[in-house]
């Protein structure tokens, strides 16, 4: 039961985060509910994969991004928005923020401890570790979401055809 609540709240907060970060980029108002649904689905899927199945963060992000990308093919036609309008905001909550932060932090600490070989190299190692994770996750997010575009090229490229919103 508590696991269920965890998954639900994970999806809920991811949805709020996606709508918020998305609003910086001026999406059409009609897209907001679908951005929220996609973000919640994707993030909750990643949460489940990581906690229940023990999948690593990189592969889990790839799967979640694929779910978001496929969902945006379906919803995109509905609200006549190009897929990117829906999936880019939905991907934003999965950007690996803490890893990126730790990369910067270790870099700074490496400079501070540059004269001490043991401590300095420890921080350097940490920086490479965190940097590798954050870059891979970011790359997988983009790749996972674009795969549906390649699979369904015709449909993916005619999302806005016959839009009744202009």
């Amino acid at each position, binding site marked *: 039961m508590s696991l269920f609540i965890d998954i639900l*709240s*994970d999806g809920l*907060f*991811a949805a*709020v*985060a*996606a*709508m*918020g*970060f*998305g*609003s*910086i*980029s*001026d*999406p*059409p108002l009609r*897209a907001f509910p679908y951005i929220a649904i996609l973000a919640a689905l994707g*993030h909750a899927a990643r949460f489940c994969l990581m906690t229940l199945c023990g999948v690593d963060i990189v592969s889990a992000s790839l799967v979640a991004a694929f779910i978001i990308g496929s969902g945006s093919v379906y919803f995109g036609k509905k609200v*006549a*928005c*190009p897929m*990117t*309008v829906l999936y*880019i*905001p939905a*991907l*934003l*909550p999965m*950007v690996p*923020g*803490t890893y*990126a*932060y*730790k990369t*910067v*932090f270790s*870099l*700074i*600490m490496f400079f*501070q401890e540059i004269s001490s070989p043991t401590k300095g190299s420890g921080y350097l190692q940490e920086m490479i570790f965190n940097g590798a994770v954050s870059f891979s996750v*970011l*790359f997988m*997010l*983009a*790749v996972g*979401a*674009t795969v549906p575009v390649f699979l369904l090229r015709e449909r993916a*490229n*005619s*999302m*806005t*055809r*016959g*839009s009744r*919103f*202009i």
Partner: protein
Amino acid sequence: MNTMTDADMTGGQVREITDFIAKYLSYMLGAGVHTSRVVRNSKRIGEALGVDVSVHTSQKTATLTVKEKGGTHMDTMVVDIPAFPISFEWNADLSALSWAAHDKAMTLDEIRAKFDSLVSKPGMNPVFVLFMVSLANASFCRLFGGDMLAMLVTFTATMIGFFTRQHLTKKKVNHYIVFIVSAFVASICASSSLALGIDTAEIALATSVLYLVPGVPLINGLIDITDGHIQIGISRLVNAFMLIVCIAIGMSLTLILVKDSLL
């Protein structure tokens, strides 16, 4: 000269079409639409107006050649890409416009009128964005495992940072400086949570700058690369990377100031 028929255009008409398509694609590129979509849409509008369009894009300018289908008139133009804020609304609407032009056989004047009405739609309310972004960052803090107090601190720290960003952007300050200053302000405010003695203060500090991460150019760059527009994809990535470096600089200032508290 070929024989004049109804279908033939004059040089002036080709020039007008070129002018419009140049404006159309510069607006789309300026608003952060990925390249293959812009090229596809421009060609589609060209198709509707009876011309062939070829486009070459780079980061700050685009070149296009418009050639009359089956005729001899052609026109080439280099346009500057204006730096608009990213707009998904334009992305959706202008794409829909290209399909409407294609399917409904609109004339150039009709397309142009529609275009003008679409790009002058009202933008986002800045206060709305301010609250949404602060909420988003607070939820983000929760996703990373922050507790209630860390969420509250992240909320107000983000509000300060984002308000600074909006204000400086309105004052037309260089955007690298905007990013450094807002990252610094937000992270220094979040770092005050260290003094509260909560366990998750570092999460608040880490999350407080994430509203600045240029997620859209990053993903657009990768999409461009996978679509084969490798040059512009790389330039977008480099651009986004520069902004990330700016965030890192702003946050490093904070970290250096408070680092004794973090160890």
